[in-house]
């Protein structure tokens, strides 16, 4: 009889412990539910939005980043293998405009500017960036083409070209045909030095 009573007391203690543990667990659940009430205050993660337009912006940023990286790769290879000074980088017109994307109002939240930093580790300074304008026909180019022949043109992915020259010049003009399959560089003659 005494043993049975002792067993009953033991079981009662177990149930009391379980009950207290359950109450504490319920309190934990209650604290989590209370968070729901405070949700607007504590919810510091990005707010839900719609992907429309973000997709386009990301597309532009992605293409800009791709162009930046391809250009960086091109410059690295040129300086490694050609050894010459890069005069001009050519980027398709639609992508050239992406090389500097000002994104400080992007989605109303972020502040960042896509610059050409991906290129800097390779060359330290920015090369001149040109685009395909003006696009001339072969015949038109032929009229302007100077008998120079000392430039080196290499084509890279995404329609990026590098133009290296052993006589760096700021006065180079760049032309291509409508299919962008060829590139011509016209070096303007340097103005004669005037006598002191």
């Amino acid at each position, binding site marked *: 009889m005494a043993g049975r009573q002792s067993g009953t007391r033991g079981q009662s203690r177990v149930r009391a412990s379980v009950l207290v543990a359950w109450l504490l667990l319920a309190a934990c*659940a209650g604290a989590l539910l209370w968070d729901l009430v405070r949700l607007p205050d504590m919810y510091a993660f990005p707010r839900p939005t719609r992907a429309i337009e973000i997709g386009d912006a990301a597309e532009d940023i*992605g293409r800009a980043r791709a162009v930046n990286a391809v250009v960086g790769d091109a410059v690295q290879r040129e300086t490694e293998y050609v050894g010459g000074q890069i005069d001009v980088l050519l980027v398709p017109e639609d992508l050239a405009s992406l090389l500097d994307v000002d994104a400080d109002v992007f989605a109303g939240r972020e502040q960042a500017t896509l610059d050409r930093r991906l290129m800097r580790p390779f060359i330290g300074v920015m090369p001149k960036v040109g685009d395909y304008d003006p696009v001339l026909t072969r015949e038109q180019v032929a009229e302007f083409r100077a008998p120079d022949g000392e430039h080196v043109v290499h084509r890279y992915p995404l329609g990026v070209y590098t133009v290296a020259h052993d006589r760096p010049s700021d006065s180079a003009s760049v032309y291509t045909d409508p299919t962008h399959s060829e590139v011509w560089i016209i070096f303007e003659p340097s103005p004669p030095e005037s006598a002191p």
Partner: protein
Amino acid sequence: MSDSPAAVASLGAAYTLTTLGLGWVVLFPLRQRLGIVGYHLASYPTGLLAWPVVACVSSLVGQPFGVETVFFGVLPYLFFGLLFARSLAPVSKSGGESVWPRESRAVASYVIWGVGICGIAAVVQGTGATAVGYDSVFHYAAWGSWLDLTGKIGAEIAGAYGALIPSAIAASRVFGVGWLASPWPILALHVVAIVGVGVREATRGLARVWRIAIPAITVALMVASAPFLAHSIYLHSHMISAAYLALALMALRHAFVPIQPPFAEDAVFAWCFVAGVATAGLALARPDGLAYALVPLAVAVVARLHGPRPARTLTAFLVPLLAFLGLFYGTAFLETRGWGGDKLTAKTAAAVIVALAIVGIAGAFLDRIPHAGPWLASRRHALLAATVLNAVALIGLFLVRTEELRATTTIMFGNLTEHGGYGSLWVVAAAMIVLSVAWARVWRPDTWSLLLLFAIGQFFAVAVVVHGLGHPGRLSPADSFARVAFHVVPLVFWYGGSIAAGLTRAWHESRDAEEGR
């Protein structure tokens, strides 16, 4: 390409169905061992891992993403995936009974799961429901575009963002999806299902009302928490990492701690394969995912010893894990000739992969060490030894790098309790864990509950090392650790549900004992 919501929804559904289908195909030989729930839950995450393989093929052949590269990238994924999965599923004479249902029910399961997952994708893509931050746009989406346009992995993807998300985005662009938003809510659904099923298994033997109420309440509380809601649509690595970690743990539970013993030996290999694939997903979702791969790996080593299961079961875990990691980081190394950076360099990646391989291989032979081996394999000694080993390693690290680790842990604590956007979640979790240990005699945790607790502890141990040796962080919801802590939240709720089940069982057993039943 039309931009109408219906067209966008269709493209999203087509991409999702392809991803899911790839997972279905690779896991098909294992379906009889995984069962209907396990097979479908593992398929979509497994299919997502096809896209890093496509990225590797794309990089190796020097071509941008396109229909051809996707096709030829998917082929080796399917070939080697099927080859290995088939080798694990000989349906041996001693392999036990199939748990795959009869044909009509199986076909219905494909239809229901496929329509459900693709339906979510269509709704999410069609409505454009998403949440974005700086990383979403300027890194993940941008590097996805870069991978698509150039076919190059590059130092940024390999060293700073991981293979999984950029390659998944690049592949989605081949399908014409503009802004990929569907994997996040789909994987959130997977997390809900994994935790729900896991807690329901913990309620085994209880009355029906408890078997419904405890998993339902646990999952409802998890879904209602602010970080879970946010990461369900936030284009970042966190819901993806959380889903792969939860899937890996679910697979290890079925492999090594059988719910209904005796267990078919073939099933152990099948589940180990799923655990290895899920751990690869965890490792490739973020650069520090490589370090967190130690969490499922440590649980696998400890749980195998507890089994005990044959050493070769760990092979089924390690092969897919190391194959994915070796393929991706090997390809990245070939392409970049080694990369640097301030997150994951080529040398660090190689060192961590080798370390994971050593832990896995050594873990397979621990029980053969004279004297210590049998001790480790008996009772819960392996769990105790692993916990002590973690504690010693952390104390040693604190002694060597006192200042860095003090700063890091202070910031980690501040983010978990006040600044990280978690509300009272981690305070509640800590209180729950402390009480569960103090009152272990009342609710009598089973081995799996202890392994869950070990996994949570191992996660934080890795986090202290990763952040202590790197950047200490900042007090903000945007801090890296503040976000990474979300990965283990599903395991915390799983553990909480197991406590509730244990308490309910203790209550009923006590009442029955008193009534003399």
